[in-house]
């Protein structure tokens, strides 16, 4: 078995801001199988409304089978999740999806925006664990993160710095790091050819990064978010259009895609 439906206990609740929450679950079976870029489906309440589970990329897997998700309270499902108390149990389904295909940490650039930063911390720690240049500071991979403002971005940047990677930051209001978009930072960084991008963020940001990478013939993996009912290839609700025509399914073909395969709309 590689996927599990498990009742798991919430062991840590962190409110990073007023509406950004990080939950840590004791989920040993799922955590043991999880790879960066994969996701879990979380049942937000035992009742029938809201009915469907919510997909969350795996933010971190830490020792002793602990698994984290990170989210912003945006609707009914996330509101309920933000009310779960330490010690309570929730049903998790996972790990689901394909996950990133990590290349060398020496030629990796992680680009995250908003809650799209969530899966990149797991990826960064996985890169570090296999980095040959572990003694070198700042450690690879290169990381560029953006959000609306300092309050939303700084706690997440701190997490990356804590595990030992340097971060280039950008905020919409200029309150932390570069005043502007992560795409500006990426462009200015003069990323050498051969570096690959691992990207997760809002659709317009990923579309811009995808276009940039296409112009530079640069490999780019994106983590795509859609609504989905099942997360395991049954409902076929999570279709995204492909450049070659037809659709792919985010849950079973993704959520990680080579950016050039997708049809981007701006």
């Amino acid at each position: 078995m590689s996927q599990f439906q498990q009742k798991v206990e919430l062991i840590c609740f962190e409110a990073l801001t007023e509406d950004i929450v990080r939950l840590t679950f004791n989920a040993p079976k799922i955590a043991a199988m999880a790879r960066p870029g994969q996701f879990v489906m979380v049942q937000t309440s035992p009742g029938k409304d809201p009915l469907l589970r919510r997909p969350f990329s795996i933010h971190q897997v830490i020792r002793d089978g602990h698994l984290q998700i990170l989210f912003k309270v945006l609707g009914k499902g996330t509101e309920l999740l933000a009310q779960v108390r330490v010690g309570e149990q929730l049903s998790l389904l996972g790990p689901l999806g394909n996950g990133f295909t990590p290349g060398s940490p020496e030629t990796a650039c992680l680009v995250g925006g908003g809650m799209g930063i969530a899966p990149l911390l797991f990826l960064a720690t996985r890169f570090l664990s296999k980095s040959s240049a572990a003694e070198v500071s700042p450690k690879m991979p290169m990381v560029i993160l953006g959000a609306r403002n300092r309050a939303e971005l700084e706690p997440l940047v701190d997490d990356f710095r804590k595990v030992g990677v340097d971060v280039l930051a950008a905020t919409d209001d200029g309150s932390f790091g570069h005043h502007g978009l992560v795409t500006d930072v990426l462009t200015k960084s003069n990323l050498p050819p051969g570096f690959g991008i691992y990207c997760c963020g809002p659709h317009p940001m990923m579309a811009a990064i995808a276009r940039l990478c296409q112009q530079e013939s640069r490999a780019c993996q994106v983590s795509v978010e859609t609504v989905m009912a099942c997360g395991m290839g049954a409902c076929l609700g999570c279709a995204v259009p492909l450049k070659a025509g037809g659709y792919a399914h985010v849950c079973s073909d993704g959520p990680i895609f080579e950016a050039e395969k997708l049809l981007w709309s701006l």
Partner: protein
Amino acid sequence: MEPLIMATEKADLRVSIGSLALQNPVMTASGTFGYGREFEDFVKLRGLGAVVVKGISLAPRAGNPPPRIVETACGMLNAIGLENTGVDRFISDKMPYLAALGVPVLVNILGDSVEEYRQLAGRLAGIPGIGAIEVNISCPNVKKGGVAFGTDPQMAAAVTAAVKGCSQVPVIVKLSPNVTDITVVARAVEEAGADAVSLINTLIGMAIDLRSRRPRLANVIGGLSGPAIKPVALRMVYQVARAVAIPVIGIGGIATAEDAMEFMLAGATAVQVGTANFVNPGACDEVIAGIAAYVTEQKMGSVRELIGALRVC
């Protein structure tokens, strides 16, 4: 706990749909269980009454543009657009795994014309492992201006007769609830030779996003499923079971053993678990275990004692 488990294993859960014998009355609803394999980590596939697979057409279909699904109160709307691999790839890629499970596979078929349904039934005839054909008549008839087969008793009967004419296995017709009187269509397909009817398919609905003033589905309208539709489904199963002599398979918002047995009381011989599979991929196991526990607790000789046993007066 152990004596109870031993006792529930002895509960007689067998039912029959025409000549098709099932080890228990719990099937998966088409379109909610993929081609079965997707659920192998979560449910005991060999323990199911039957596996009903995603609807199959002659040619592969890409499906509708997104968004294809939206959650609604106690349910969801979908407009997947009948995306499927087509019958040839279904037979070559999906059927070998399914046949090896040893439980009947019910192949849900759909087409744009009576002729397409006939050809599909012909292609599937004689394939090992297929226990029955379930005919989805909620599709539009392209040759009749897109009117759904299932909303016209004559067209529903024509499709039934065509499929029946080239099938050796039982033919189940899946009825659309989007009609004025579902018993009229039920009787029409019974007369045309259907061995059973399954109901209900989804109820047509829509959802609107006030902020953008747009429909929430790219297709504008879609099919409502989930607990929200259960009372409507129960009522229709009750009505149809009294109107026809062939077995009725109940579908609509079934998530627990209690739900399933309510449908059996209303007249269903078997049930299909649908949207619940999305939320709880182990739902069918729980439904089967719950029915077995009830049959044992109530000291019933067989689950069949529930069928149509509703006390109305």
